[in-house]
């Protein structure tokens, strides 16, 4: 509410109050001012003044603050003030009015002022009471609430309009002389009954609040009942004062006080009935809030320790246990998490546990844990069933605990289950025997499911994060592997060379390299390490190291491959091997001399002819030496200008389409024949495009490497 509207309302109320005083002073001074219009003006001024008070009170209230006890407190205060005031005035100034011509006339100006102030305060109190009750009614409203309030306000309005329009009624009777008045009053009473019949907010109070509410509504109902009687009883000072100000005001105050009296009486009775169940209600509310906490906990799943500690502490709260702990079976725990689980030393083997207790030290807790885990390990059948021991001292299942003098009366345990697997257990114990009732067990059972889900989520998320970390590392590995391949290839007017290697996964086992041996000779190699991904990539790096160091002092293909085989056979795993082609190009003579260690044949394109050359030779790392050396053969090719040498890995020749058909040697050769041969780079792109057109797939199944040499001649 803005300051201006507040000021305006206050000014209006003040003006109304002043007008009423003036009006009645004049009325008393001149005896009778007998014309009908004046009475109507008085009625309208009263109506506007109290409407102003109502508006100010309504607007001043903080919306959305649903504290029923606060509303009750204000009601009681208002009722008390009016009761005291009217009580004091009736006793001190009895006979302040005399009846003349069926109208109350104040005996003195003093009693005139006092009675107008009293009436004014009573009216204000009625307005406040009405508004507070409307606030109460709107707490936990339903569809009918608004309708009921409107009904009540309508009957109230109708009563007042009737009283105002019919004009000055007789002063000694309560009702305005009109048959309609009684019907309208009866309607208001019905509306009051309807409003007072629904108080859903009582149930939601805590036990403590219910006791306070009971006290408040007890006194409130008494105050307002008395106030109602005083405002209706014509001999009472309050009734007389109100009627003197205006009979309609008296009607309004009476109805409002009646509303408060009925509402508070019902409130008292209703609270009284709710008291016995207050505790159960409190507990349900606590359970609900615990569940709510858990759902918060589920979001924070990065630390299993924290997760289990909070879960153990919440399970203790749920059933008001003296201690609780959670065991996770390390055998089902995801690898990589196991090292961080648990506090203390895992009592049973293969499990880790997190315990919370006020009444027990760690060692004692451990003994209880050990005794109970034995119950499960001895009897395999109830693994996924809850365990309830109500009398620990007598129960045969936990003999290990008996005689231990541990303060354990009753124990319960619930399996933590995800899908069909028991991943651990939730335990709780109380000092007293028969400590766990059905509600406790039900809540714990539901809670155990929540904990299982939370733990499972934690595992899934850690696995996911681990996966992402590996992915990141593989990406780094890929970048590193790309650096193992030559950044630039030698260029010369006599030949043109291009090469590309595409791994099927992040890293692969394909390898190509080019070294300058001397001014005239260039060493070229293409290889393929068996196996996939990471292991292949590591051997590929090793192969590169061996190749680079050997070609520093060896050039002959036979010698290079023999020495490579020796080096690799000594280090590589028995089930791994490397196939490799090594060629030496003599740029002065235009000759290629090469040897093949189990690798795909070399493709030589000579004019319109093509030929796959495959001298004998077994893969590197398959044999210790003798057989390798015996079989290795060297072949020489004399190049003519325009000749093409193509070296590749089986990712090219064995690229498959959806029918399982392989790209094969012939398609490779034909592609090289068909395509433009001016540039090695263009030819390379062209062949890769042909392979792509053939497989019709963007997914490469195997690492793929292609190296092209176009001989231009001297």
């Amino acid at each position, binding site marked *: 509410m803005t300051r201006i509207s507040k000021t305006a309302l206050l000014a209006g109320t003040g003006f109304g109050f002043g007008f009423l005083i003036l009006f009645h002073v004049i009325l008393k001074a001149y005896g009778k001012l007998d014309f009908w219009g004046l009475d109507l003006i008085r009625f309208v001024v009263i109506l506007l003044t109290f409407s102003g008070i109502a508006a100010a009170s309504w607007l001043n209230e903080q919306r959305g603050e649903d504290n029923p006890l606060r509303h009750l407190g204000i009601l009681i205060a208002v009722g008390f003030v009016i009761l005291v005031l009217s009580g004091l005035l009736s006793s001190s100034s009895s006979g302040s009015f005399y009846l003349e011509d069926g109208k109350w006339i104040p005996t003195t100006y003093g009693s005139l002022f006092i009675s107008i102030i009293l009436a004014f305060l009573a009216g204000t109190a009625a307005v406040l009471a009405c508004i507070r009750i409307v606030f109460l009614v709107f707490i936990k409203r339903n569809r009918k609430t608004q309708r009921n309030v409107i009904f009540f306000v309508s009957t109230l309005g109708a009563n007042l309009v009737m009283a105002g329009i019919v004009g000055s009624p007789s002063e000694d009777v309560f009702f305005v002389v009109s048959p309609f008045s009684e019907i309208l009053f009866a309607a208001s009473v019905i509306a009051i009954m309807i409003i007072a019949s629904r108080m859903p907010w009582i149930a939601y109070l805590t036990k403590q609040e219910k006791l306070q509410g009971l006290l408040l509504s007890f006194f409130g109902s008494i105050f307002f009942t008395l106030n109602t009687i005083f405002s209706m009883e014509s001999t009472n000072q309050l009734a007389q004062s109100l009627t003197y100000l205006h009979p309609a005001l008296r009607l309004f105050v009476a109805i409002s006080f009646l509303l408060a009296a009925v509402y508070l009486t019902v409130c008292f009775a209703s609270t009284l009935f709710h008291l016995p169940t207050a505790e159960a209600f409190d507990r349900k509310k606590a359970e609900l809030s615990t569940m709510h906490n858990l759902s918060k906990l589920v979001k924070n799943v990065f630390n299993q320790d924290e997760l289990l500690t909070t879960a153990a502490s919440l399970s203790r709260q749920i059933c008001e246990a003296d201690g609780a702990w959670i065991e996770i079976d390390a055998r089902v725990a995801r690898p990589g998490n196991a090292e961080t689980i648990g506090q203390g030393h895992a009592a049973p083997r293969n499990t880790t546990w997190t315990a919370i207790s006020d009444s027990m030290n760690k060692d004692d807790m451990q003994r209880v844990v050990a005794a109970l885990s034995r119950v499960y390990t001895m009897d395999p059948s109830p693994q996924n069933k809850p365990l309830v021991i109500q009398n620990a001292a007598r129960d045969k299942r936990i003999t290990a605990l008996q005689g231990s003098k541990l303060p354990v009366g009753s124990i319960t345990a619930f399996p933590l289950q995800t899908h069909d697997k028991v991943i651990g257990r939730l335990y709780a114990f109380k000092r007293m025997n028969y400590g766990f009732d059905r509600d406790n067990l039900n809540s714990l059972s539901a809670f155990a499911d929540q904990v299982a889900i939370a733990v499972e989520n934690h595992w899934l998320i850690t696995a996911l994060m681990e996966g992402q970390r590996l992915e990141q590392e593989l990406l780094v590995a890929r970048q590193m592997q790309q650096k193992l391949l030559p950044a630039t290839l030698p260029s010369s007017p006599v030949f043109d060379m291009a090469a590309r290697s595409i791994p099927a996964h992040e890293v692969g086992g394909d390898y190509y390299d080019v070294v300058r041996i001397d001014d005239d000779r260039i060493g070229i190699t293409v290889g393929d390490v068996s196996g996939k991904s990471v292991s292949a990539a590591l051997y590929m790096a090793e192969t590169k190291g061996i190749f680079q160091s050997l070609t520093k002092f060896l050039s002959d293909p036979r010698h290079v491959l023999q020495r490579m085989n020796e080096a690799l056979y000594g280090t590589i795993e028995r089930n*791994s*091997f490397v196939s490799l082609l090594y060629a030496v190009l003599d740029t002065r003579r235009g000759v290629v001399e090469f040897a093949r260690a189990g690798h795909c044949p070399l493709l030589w394109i000579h004019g319109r002819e093509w030929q796959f050359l495959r001298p004998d030779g077994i893969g590197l790392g398959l044999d210790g030496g003798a057989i390798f050396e015996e079989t290795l053969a060297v072949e020489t090719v004399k190049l003519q200008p325009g000749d093409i040498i193509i070296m590749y890995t089986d990712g090219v020749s064995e690229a498959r389409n959806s029918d399982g058909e392989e790209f094969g040697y012939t398609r490779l050769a034909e592609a090289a024949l068909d395509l433009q041969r001016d540039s090695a780079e263009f030819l390379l792109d062209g062949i890769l495009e042909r392979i792509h057109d053939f497989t019709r797939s963007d997914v490469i199944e195997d690492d793929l490497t292609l190296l092209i040499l176009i001989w231009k001649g001297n």
Partner: protein
Amino acid sequence: MSEFTIDAHEHDQIRVLSLKGYLDAHTAPQLESSFQRELESGRYKLIVNFRDLDYISSAGLGVFMQFIEEVRKHDGDIKLANMSKRVYNVFDLLGFPVLFEIFEDEKEALLSFQNKS
């Protein structure tokens, strides 16, 4: 994904493993454990029948290399038989024919074991 099965039977104290389907990096461990079992029970005379094998990758070839040394140390051997042309080409390219005895069919392989002993 790729189907791969191994059927093992014995013939005159010689074990015959018949492979079927795709032998690649994913299915190689299956063959590995089959060999492992044979070696653990002291059977070193082994024949691998490739009749129903559709595809073999370099990882599949590696399995044979992994065990051949130990088998031969115990006077046994792994003999290969009934290869399709396509499978044979893979073996051939890598130079396996100089490392393993490869036979047209299972009978020949059996005979070669029996002649030796």
